[in-house]
């Protein structure tokens, strides 16, 4: 194993060096960095040209210049001497200082959309597989292919126009017209109908109930000014927490497992009490307070699960912890919603909360909830845009993987020996279908980092992508190389992780030691 990793490491370093050389040459060849000065009529043009030649070492031919760059970059690998040098941009800024800022912005974006894409993609993919060849499956297949085919900048611009500007305009007079209530209710009825399935009578019932519920909720929202003063409220809070407890128990333990259900119930009750009791503390919380509260939540859930006892405490504890965390999440969401009117009425926001540029409102003053809402309103659209890239792919792979597993002999065996369908799906099929997904997710991360170049430009998000694009436009090899080093290393690392995960999850695959 050790020798495998060592060999892998050496090969990776060589690969990185080779790719870096290619990248450097290509960038240096891709244009003339002095071009902007040729048409300058300013008296100081000669000085500026000379200074740029000097700073970018343009009189050294690119192959040699690469080694000058490499000499500086190599110092980054030597620990403790702190002489790391990735060169300067044409504007004289050290690339090493720019990188962390840029990485920060891009990672925020990419992480959020990766998590979202995985969660939504897996759910949709697996449900599609379980409902193979139903209308839902066809519609989802079509939608995922459609998303696959959309240019992300096109989507980004549409989202800005319709979601940001449209929704903000809507907020100035937040009344949903009856026509829209009807349309949305019909759509929601159709979606639930497709999701749940069953015979004609059951489908009709699902359609009517979900449609009516949607219409009722929308009307309530519209009448009660919910869009400008959102909150979950005591009733929704209780319903949703109870629903979470019920669904998680059903999925993870089976509803017949009374002890697990009891654990979940206790968590829901505690969460509901906390919803009222903790408001005062939440008002003055910092991010660390929330972290500690999270730890307490886990501890309490663990304890409850343990104390409820029964033959399989592990299941109780798992159900308990997940229920508790998700219910706690509801409380946080509700608290964020409470901050919404405060945020929206700030003079810097001026009643137009959904943002189209940047990652935060400059000079915003407010508690963590207002800051949280600010991050949300800024990250929402770029995250959605970026998510579309990987969501479609993940759905397809999750569906295919699940179908593949479902046709395996051991699934038939499990069914044949009378195991409940829940156990077959969750324990046998789902886990094994995750194996290929792990690889996809890892290699997708690289694609997302690349896709961020476009998203960043559309949403004026100055991350790695912007750095790369600006560098290449001039062309200015140093920032491009800074970008490349980060991207290439993360690609190599994630591929490595993927291989490792693969061999860890699938005993059939063993690394050649």
């Amino acid at each position, binding site marked *: 194993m050790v020798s495998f990793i060592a060999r892998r490491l050496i090969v990776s370093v060589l690969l990185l060096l080779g790719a870096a050389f290619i990248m450097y040459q290509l960038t240096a060849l891709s244009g003339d960095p002095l071009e902007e000065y040729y048409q300058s009529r300013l008296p100081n043009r000669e000085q500026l040209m000379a200074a740029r030649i000097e700073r970018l070492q343009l009189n050294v031919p690119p192959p040699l210049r690469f080694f000058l760059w490499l000499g500086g970059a190599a110092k980054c690998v030597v620990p403790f001497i702190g002489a790391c040098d990735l060169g300067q941009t044409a504007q004289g800024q050290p690339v090493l200082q720019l990188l962390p800022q840029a990485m920060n912005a891009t990672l925020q974006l990419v992480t959020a959309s990766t998590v979202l894409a995985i969660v939504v993609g897996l759910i949709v993919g697996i449900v599609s597989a379980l409902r193979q060849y139903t209308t839902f499956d066809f519609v989802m297949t079509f939608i995922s292919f459609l998303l696959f085919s959309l240019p992300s900048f096109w989507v980004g611009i549409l989202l800005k126009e319709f979601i940001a500007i449209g929704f903000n305009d809507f907020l100035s007079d937040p009344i949903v017209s009856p026509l829209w209530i009807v349309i949305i209710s019909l759509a929601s009825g159709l979606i639930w109908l497709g999701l749940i399935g069953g015979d004609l009578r059951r489908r009709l019932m699902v359609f009517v109930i979900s449609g009516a519920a949607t219409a009722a909720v929308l009307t309530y929202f519209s009448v009660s000014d919910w869009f400008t003063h959102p909150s979950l409220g005591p009733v929704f809070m209780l319903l949703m927490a109870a629903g979470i407890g019920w669904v998680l128990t059903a999925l993870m333990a089976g509803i017949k497992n009374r002890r697990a259900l009891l654990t979940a119930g206790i968590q829901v009750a505690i969460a509901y009490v906390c919803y009222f009791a903790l408001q005062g503390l939440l008002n003055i919380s910092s991010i660390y307070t929330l972290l500690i509260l999270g730890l307490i939540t886990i501890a309490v859930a663990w304890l409850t699960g343990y104390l409820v006892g029964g033959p399989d405490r592990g299941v109780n504890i798992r159900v308990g912890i997940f229920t508790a965390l998700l219910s706690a999440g509801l409380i946080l969401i509700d608290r964020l919603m409470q901050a919404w009117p405060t945020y929206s009425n700030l003079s810097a926001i001026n009643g137009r909360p959904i943002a*189209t540029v940047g990652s935060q409102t400059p000079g915003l*003053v407010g508690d963590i909830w207002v800051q949280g809402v600010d991050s949300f309103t800024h990250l929402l659209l770029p995250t959605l845009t970026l998510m579309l890239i990987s969501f479609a792919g993940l759905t397809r792979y999750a569906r295919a993987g699940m179908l593949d597993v479902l046709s395996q002999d051991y699934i038939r065996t499990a069914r044949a020996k009378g195991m409940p369908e829940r156990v077959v799906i969750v324990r046998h099929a789902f886990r094994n279908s995750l194996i290929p997904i792990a690889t996809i997710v890892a290699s997708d991360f690289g694609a997302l980092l690349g896709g961020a170049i476009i998203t960043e430009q559309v949403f004026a998000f100055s991350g790695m992508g912007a750095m790369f694009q600006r560098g290449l436009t001039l062309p200015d090899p140093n920032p491009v190389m800074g970008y490349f080093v980060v991207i290439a290393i993360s690609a190599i690392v994630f591929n490595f992780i993927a291989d490792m995960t693969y061999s860890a999850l699938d005993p059939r695959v063993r690394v050649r030691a």
Partner: protein
Amino acid sequence: MKFQRIVAPVSVAAVAAMLITGCTTTGDQPAAQTGGTVTVAEVNELTAFTSSTSASNLDMNGKFMGYTRSSFFYLDNKLNLIPDKSFGTVEKTSDDPLTVKYTLAKTATWSDGTPITADDMLLAWAAFSGFFNDASYDDDGNVTGGTAYFDYAGDTSGLALADRPVVGDDNMSITLTYSEPYADWSLINPIDAPIHVVADHAGVSQADLVNAIMTMPRGDAAAPAPVNDVLKKAADFWNTGFDATSLPTDKSLYLSSAAFVLDAWVPKESITLVRNKEYKGSLVPKIDKIVVRFIGDAQAQVTALKNGEVDIINPQASADTIKSLEAIKGVTTLTGDQFSYDHLDLTFNTGVFQNAPDLREAFLKTIPRQQILDAIVTPMNPNAEIYDSQLFFPGTDGYAETIKSNGASAFDKVDIDGAMAILNGRTPEVRILYNTKNPNRVAAFQAIQASAEQAGFKIIDAGAENWGSLLGSGTYDATIFGWISSGVGVGGVPQIFGSTGGGNYNGYSNAEVDSLANKLQTTLDKKAQDDIQVQIDKLLWSDFYGVPLFVAPGVMAHSNSVTGVVYYPGQAGVGWNFWEWAKK
């Protein structure tokens, strides 16, 4: 029993956690109060708290200096020099020799409370004049001997004509005496970084630094002097010390002498400027805060303005940008000219136009200038007119005068018959170089090609992506490209039209123009300068130098909640009159 064993540690842990929780709370935040904030979108980010070094000579740094540094004068939107007497006065005390006295106002103060004195002006002079540099360079620009002290981005040749300044008025004034007249003397603004900050960071005392500036002899590349340590340390800090990628903890790096001072910098996103409490000058703003957000994409700027996230934008002009801005409710769109123009130049030292004024004339007669204008500029600016001067921008004093006499109007209309008459059956080949990446240049080329071929010219497409490095290579007979100018001063004229000018790519050489251009450099009076330029303009047209095509249009837009925003054609950008902005 077992139950208790478990509960005890867990509850202890829980109580401890609760205590820590209590310690991490923040208490009530003060309610956000932001009254009178104006948010401006800019394309590029700030990279330094100076714009004088060659690395920091970028548009956003210059704009930042506009918000945070007072000057002896500023340029208004008509390019007039407006003195700021509340900062200091400039006085020409003698014409021969040219002597200029700069006196600071008593109220001029840095934002840390230190008064601004002649010491600060001496530092600026030392940097701007290149007085002490004695470095010599090889062909690649490497220093081969001597020392280069200040890495100043500007042209040092003007100030180098002056001798060391004389300090007076209780260390509040300096007087510069020039060895020969210098035309652009009025554009010299001898104030830059605070000398006490430079001295502190360089590890020298301010007195020593002033002493070095006042005593060290003028540098001579032929006989380099030993390095002066004090000056070298100060210069080294001046060259790079003000570069930044985020807000430094050391506030002295971004001292202000104007109405605003930097308060916050979110790297890559925005900077926030707040009122400078030490500012006692007269350009007092009406607003409390300026936020500058960095938004590179023009479309993103427009959407941000539409969504109320920014109040003022300054995007790259395009017909659609202007149209969509005009369609937004509650937004005012300002359009105007920029200080840059596209032009067609003929090559004089090689090729078909060498020593062939008749061919040059015939070719210029075929240039469809109105058609090019209609295709490129009219959609953005319906009132655009053909640009008829090589030297003056439309709207300036000299422009109206020069077009009366320079003979440019002869080429306003396409005259195919006239061109054919001159060609008299000849079919000369003309290679035209242009930037194939720029759609405007491509459109201009296509129009010229179609028109010139009617008259019998054979047009060869010599367009290239790397057009810039081909300039002056003699591989073309005509070229279409743009000039970007500061709009003020006459220092650029010999650069472009002088026989040996660095920007003279087309080998143009006319002894009369050369001598006029040199005379221009030593003419002090604005009216006399204009007269000389009118004469040069006329010579250029009668030599069939080429034709200007159009002045590039620019656009700015602001939300109607902000008043006082005025279009500005120059590099200072939309913030040139920030003290007149007000928020409704």
